[in-house]
């Protein structure tokens, strides 16, 4: 084995195919997007080089800032509610006294395996202001409160984000729970013998030891928020107006609705940069020499 790993030709032989596929499928399109962002291009005709014009226009476009803001709101909701809920569920299932763990574990994951279309159709019905579950529930409880969940310019982005929270909390939970289960039971047992409460075990042992797992969860939640597209496309089509636009949706609009592919590529480049920056910051925050 040692001999084989020392042979650079062997290493190249085994890694090159994967690298080649990665380059073609991921890296080349990103480079092409970057290149096209410097062009005025409708996607079909000959592209005209315009230098930084697309970026100059982007930074003066109100829609860009609204999309950016919505991405941050979406990511914030995912971090607080999706990760928060997943953490609570993980704590609960790590508790020895909780029964039916297998049942709960599977139940939490059910929404994840649903297609986004099915989830959105379901929530579209729940949010419906005339016939939906929420407004009728308020009515049944005698509350004089009705809400246009998806047609309110201020709250639509929150309503859309919560559909994502509902659907993918189980995913975050699974990652966290798997991480928690990989912590040696001896540590937890020792803490219990020393008289630690469940809360102390959760906060002082589980959380610190799940640092790398949380790093990954943060990356998923934040970049997932910035990248959000499918839920708003199915639930609101970005509306009302532009109130549920994210940068991904803006890219889609520029390229496919308006026919400005070059401009769409520029917003896509900013999106990629934003995600890379977020990942870098998360890695910086979570990197410490302290190892568990």
């Amino acid at each position, binding site marked *: 084995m040692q001999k084989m790993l020392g042979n650079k030709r062997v290493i190249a032989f085994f890694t090159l195919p994967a690298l080649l596929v990665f380059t073609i499928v991921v890296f080349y399109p990103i480079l092409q997007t970057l290149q096209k962002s410097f062009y005025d291009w409708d996607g*079909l005709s000959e592209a005209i080089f315009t230098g930084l014009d697309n970026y100059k226009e982007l930074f003066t476009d109100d829609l860009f800032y609204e999309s950016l803001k919505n991405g941050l709101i979406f990511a914030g909701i995912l971090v607080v509610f999706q990760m928060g809920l997943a953490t609570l569920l993980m704590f609960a299932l790590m508790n020895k006294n909780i029964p039916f763990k297998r049942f709960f574990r599977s139940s939490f994951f059910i929404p994840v395996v649903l297609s986004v279309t099915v989830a959105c159709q379901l929530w579209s019905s729940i949010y419906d202001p*005339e016939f939906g579950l929420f407004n009728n529930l308020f009515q049944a409880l005698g509350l004089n409160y009705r809400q*246009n*969940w998806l*047609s309110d310019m201020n709250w639509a982005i929150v309503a859309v984000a919560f559909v994502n929270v509902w659907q993918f909390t189980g995913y975050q939970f699974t990652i966290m729970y798997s991480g928690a289960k990989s912590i040696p039971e001896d540590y937890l047992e020792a803490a219990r013998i020393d008289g630690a409460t469940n809360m102390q075990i959760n906060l002082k042992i589980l959380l610190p030891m799940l640092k790398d797992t949380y790093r990954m969860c943060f990356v998923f939640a934040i970049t997932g928020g910035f990248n959000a597209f499918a839920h708003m496309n199915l*639930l*609101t*089509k970005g*509306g009302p107006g532009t109130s549920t636009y994210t940068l991904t949706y803006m890219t889609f609009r520029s390229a496919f609705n308006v026919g400005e592919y070059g401009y769409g590529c520029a917003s896509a480049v900013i999106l990629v940069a934003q995600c890379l920056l977020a990942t870098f910051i998360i890695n910086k925050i979570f990197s410490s020499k302290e190892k568990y």
Partner: protein
Amino acid sequence: MKLKKALSIGISAAMLTGLLVPASVQAAETDEEITLSVCIHYYDDSKALADYAAEKVKEKYPNVTLEFEDFPQDGGQTLKTRAATGDLPDIFKVDGGLADVLAKSGSILELDDYYAESNYEENLPQNVIDNCLKSLDGHIYQFPIDGIPPVLWYYNKQIFEDNNIKVPENYDELMTAIKELRAIDIIPVAMFGKEPWPVGAFFDAFALKENPGGVKALSEGTSKASDEDFSKAINRIADAVEAGIFQDGVTNADYETANALFTEGKAAMFLNGSWYLSDLINNLGENGDFLETYPTADAGAEDSKYRMAGGPDTAGLAVSANTEYPEIATDVAAIFASAREEQEYSKYKLLSAPVKTENLEIEGELEDVQQKLLDIIPEITYGSKFIHTLANTKFSADMTEELQKLLVGESAEDFIKNVDKSIEKSTK
């Protein structure tokens, strides 16, 4: 009558088979088995129409088989992608916006010569020749289908009669009707605001009363939202929205939702194209009708009575530049479009079908509401366009978004400010 019918069939057959065929196409006839792909609406009545037209093609080209693909209703995205990869169907439906983009990239055939040689225009009504043939670059790229449909303001007679509410004929009466309908818990107008064109048509229903250019004039930069006439219309829309003209969640409602509200009697009025007439008859029977004029103008404003939203577009059947058989595909597209539209007029009573109708007879009796439309069609004028077919796609997207905001309570002032900003930016 029999003689007239026989004559009309004879003329139609002659036009389809002989007169339309230019010399270049005749030369291209061959016995080789040819399969052409056709991308067009292909479900329910549209399927029967396409199959009928395919039979007509077979009469002239027994060796040509048409393979249908259902038209993807995604704003042209699929077809644009297929154009980029050189994978367009031989013949396919385009609207004005898509035709312009594909023409610019050389993805579809220019049909000027075919039109000149075949005298295809002789089969088209003058308003179609004037408004629906030439693309932005002045050339022809399609054989018109589906015609110039006006957007009609439908209403449920029974709701108005049962509740002793006057059917609105002008703006003041509309506002009164909204108030009275809301008082009995009926939605005044059902709207499918998730789609762009209905909100654009609603805007034009008000704007056209004040300015014959409607949203098209704004998109071309010849008018501004802050102009007195547009400002008046916009403020009226904002007032109607505030009074509760639409159902809750209007910007999130699709066609099925809005149609269900209207046909189940939960909404009193409904905006849709003239193609909805047969559904109206099926769903509401004699209780279904449409307003002869939009109730959005001052009382007595006769000059704007028949200005209608909707209107002309260069929509039709285009031929891919990559087709293996350009001459035959072009001729097939022409025969197909002509036969389809004649059938659409005669059998399916599409009264605005883009064909000359003097020699065509409608099968069966027209319902009163259809006769009403047939009577007013010559009076209708179109100064605007469907919002999604505007040449200024940037403005079209901005305007649709702004209109959605207006529909959920954005102030008229903010709307005017934002639309003017978009006009300035997109017409530079």
